[in-house]
């Protein structure tokens, strides 16, 4: 059941001034925990894993350090003066501090302070894309020339929970600026939001809880298909009009299935489907799926990106790659290069790295 596309107000989020992505950057930590290693400890199963392996942050890494890595990569591609950034926004479920922003540290590290907005965003797995929508508004209204939006996570999975197989680490950073300076123009965006309690983590809780099968049909699939359908309907486009598509990816099956439901082929989602090899990077998932896609994109390619955040909502973006992409792709480390930089760890090392052992 699809609700009608709204007619009473403008369906699409489309800024007055055309905007786009002037720079982007990814980051994935080097450690990998195979799903079979989690199964070895908890279930004894050897097949039927939701992914192959997930990325795990090292002892000296968190959302702040990882955001700085991705932000620096984005700056290298954008080749702009950091003082021209009028916003540094970081979306995550894993901000190291409950009170004290991640974004001020990131802004300081890249030299964007003090004449800038800085704030942390929270909307489960779509905190990053929500920050991106806000950046479209800030730049598109003329209030700022450039704005940075980051989605980054070091996701938490309770030991033994289904999420422990997939809760990964990584994300992407984007610098939004005028369309004429962009390597990819963001034609429009559309968001679909409801109160759907499929996944949550309350204050002072270490690990999130989830509604099991409720996280599927009424949450992930409903919001992504609604957001994508309304965006495409308002744009007058179909799946065939896009060269690539990126969907939020909590496991391997969900994005494959939602792509099929919306008429996209396995080839269209292939470059952006990273969950099998880095896990679910939560607020970073759709963001890093897009960095990997932009790494291989050609001028003229059109890309559909749809995130999903529990609670719940989806942000959909219609993007067209410009001829500026080719020169900027190689100005920073590519997503797949980070993924290839791989050190396998066992469950015990993972437990130590992630602070899962209570020492007293």
């Amino acid at each position, binding site marked *: 059941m699809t609700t009608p596309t709204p007619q009473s107000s403008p369906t699409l989020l489309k800024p007055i001034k055309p905007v786009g992505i002037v720079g982007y950057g990814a980051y994935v930590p080097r450690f990998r925990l195979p799903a079979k290693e989690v199964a070895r400890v908890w279930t004894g199963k050897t097949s*039927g894993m939701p992914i192959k392996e997930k990325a795990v942050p090292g002892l000296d890494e968190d959302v702040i350090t990882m955001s700085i890595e991705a932000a620096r990569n984005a700056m290298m591609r954008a080749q702009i003066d950091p003082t021209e950034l009028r916003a540094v926004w970081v979306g995550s479920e894993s901000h190291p501090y409950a009170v004290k922003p991640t974004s001020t540290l990131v802004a300081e590290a890249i030299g964007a302070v003090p004449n800038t907005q800085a704030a942390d965003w929270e909307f489960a797995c779509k905190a990053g894309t929500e920050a991106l929508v806000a950046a479209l508004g800030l730049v598109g209204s003329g209030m700022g020339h450039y704005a940075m939006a980051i989605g980054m996570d070091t996701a938490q999975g309770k030991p033994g929970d289904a999420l422990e197989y997939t809760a990964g680490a990584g994300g992407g950073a984007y610098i939004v600026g005028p369309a004429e300076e962009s390597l990819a123009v963001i034609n429009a965006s559309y968001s679909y939001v409801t109160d759907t309690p499929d996944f949550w983590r309350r204050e002072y809780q270490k690990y999130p809880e989830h*509604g*099991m*099968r*409720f996280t599927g*049909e*009424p949450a992930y699939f409903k919001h992504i298909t609604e957001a994508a359908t309304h965006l495409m309907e308002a744009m007058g486009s179909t799946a065939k009009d896009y060269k690539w598509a990126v969907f939020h990816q909590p496991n391997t099956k969900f994005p494959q299935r939602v792509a099929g439901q919306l008429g996209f082929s396995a080839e269209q989602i292939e470059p952006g489907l990273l969950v099998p090899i880095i896990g679910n990077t939560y607020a970073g998932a759709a963001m890093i799926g897009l960095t990997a896609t932009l790494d291989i994109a050609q001028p003229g390619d059109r890309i559909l990106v749809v995130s999903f955040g529990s609670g719940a909502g989806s942000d959909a973006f219609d993007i067209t790659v410009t001829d500026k992409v080719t020169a900027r792709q190689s100005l920073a480390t590519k997503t797949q290069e980070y993924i290839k930089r791989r050190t396998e760890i066992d469950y015990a090392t993972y437990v130590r790295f992630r602070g899962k052992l209570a020492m007293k």
Partner: protein
Amino acid sequence: MTEVVIAGIGQTEVGEHWEIGLRDLAYAAIHDAIEDAGGLKPQSLFVGNMLAPNLSRQAHVGVLIADYAGLNGIEAVTIEAAGASGGAALRQGYLAIASGFVDVALVVGVEKFTDKVGAAVDEALATASDSDFEAVQGMTPAAQAALLMKRYMHEYEVPADGFSGFALTAHANGVANKNAMFRKAIKAETYAKAEMVSDPLNMFDMAPNADGAAALLLTRRDLLPSSFKNPLVKIAGSGASSDTLALHDRKDTLYFDTAQLSAGRAMKQVGLTLDGIDFFEYHDAFSIYAAIQLEAVGFAIKGKGWKLAADGSIGIKGKIPCATMGGMKARGFPGGAAGVYQAVEAVIQLRGQAEANQIKDAKFGLIQSLGGPASTAVSHILQRLD
């Protein structure tokens, strides 16, 4: 005794209806049943439901549904007998018409599992067992069935894939049932590779919990509206029986006395022998239960029920077709609504409207609804009137 005919049937798709509540599910089925009956108005409502007080925090379901369906003023009660709630509600409707006290009775089965997820559902289902002696030990219905299955396999030397025929038949029959939860046939390899739920019971030995509602309008033949066009089906026999609540109190855990007694009573009422039964809707919440029911009713001797599934006898074209619209395994297991679904599906067979799943010249169908490991069994024989 007054002859009881089935004037209308209705059912919703069986599945995970996250966004549809108890009352809406029930209303959808009621609406269709009343329309199918040419607009007959009921005086009494009997609702089969098992889990609403637990999973939906809603008791008084009879009135909830009567009120929502715009039937205020009529008699409205909930009948609860665990998984046999639907069959028990049908029997109450049957008795009401047969007694002559009620002209038109509405029987509704409704279950809404998806108001809760995970362990909360297992915990709710376990309340059907003996709470003080079974559930308190962590026993769930699946664990009970697994214990029986293990004993059965040991006693009768059943091979590891001995029960696969039940799932294969159910899934093959579910394909053509547009209201079934699973409409995909499975292969023997799929069964063999399936994940264990509780050894030796695997995922395909167990029916999926699902939401759904089904409804029947019962009346006397002389009250049928002139516009009634469907081939007429009557309830020819009805029987119910109870056994020990706890499994450990049974003399023989591998035989369902209630299945034998309730079916025997219904058959005696009709004057029918097993040869006269054209199909059997058993209660395959677990494949082991289906096997034991086949034995208790008399289609197989003790220890050989599983062979009827293995050799194809329960297929649509077999000697005794079972789960003809997918059964609990493929149509889905809507708890206290399951017994009403069985009746709706039997009416479809007897009216000759089962399309790809039609049993040729079906005249008598036996349906049997179980609560727990047959602590309750309710049996009905439905008959096509020519």
